[in-house]
């Protein structure tokens, strides 16, 4: 799983808890099961919080990575 091609990108750069998780939950509602979301964030808390959200809601956390100041998180909607 080296290259993930996201269907949708959610940009929450500059926002802190609880905004990234809330925006993610609101955004994912709009897409069908199987959709891959890319989340762009700058809050380091998202590295722990978004995987925690995925575990709790039963969605699949595909990958997290950092590119400079930007954190990229990939989630597959499985619920």
């Amino acid at each position, binding site marked *: 799983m080296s290259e993930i091609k996201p269907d949708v990108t959610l940009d929450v750069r500059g*926002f*802190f808890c*609880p905004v990234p*998780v*809330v925006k993610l939950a*609101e955004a994912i509602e709009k897409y069908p099961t199987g959709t891959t979301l890319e989340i762009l964030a700058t809050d380091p808390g998202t590295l722990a919080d978004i995987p925690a*959200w995925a575990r709790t809601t039963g969605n699949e956390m595909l990958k997290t990575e950092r590119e400079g100041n930007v954190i990229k998180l990939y989630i597959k909607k499985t619920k």
Partner: protein
Amino acid sequence: MSESKKRLLIVCSKGTLDMAFPPFMLATTGAAMGMDAHLYFTFWGMDIITKKKFDKLKLSPVGNPSLPMPNILGMLPGMTAMATKMMKGKMKKAKMPSIEELIKTAKELGVKFHACTPTMQLSGVTKDDLIPEVDDMIGAATFLELAKDATVTLFI
């Protein structure tokens, strides 16, 4: 489906700006995580859902050793307003949502707002004084009925 949801129940007992945030951050996140989230407003926490007060919550510099000033200065006139303004400025800079925005988000996510009937009686607050987002007015028995099955219960 809602029967099997994990419940988050938070008592909001404080009406200062700083103490109003944690319940909303947890409740909106809980709801975003699929939890059945409830906020129970009691005593000073009722200010957060009172029309005339919810957008005017203040940060008290008195008895707050975390502020960058000698505590005794906090008693001077205007210090509460100054501390509040400073905090709001910092929050805006950090792109933190305001309490007004958090109330709106919480309702969009289905967070339930409960007002405490004994507090209303004590302070003379009526249903008309409360913001329309309040779902109902309940007492200790209803609160405990919700709490006994809650996965997470917090008192803030």
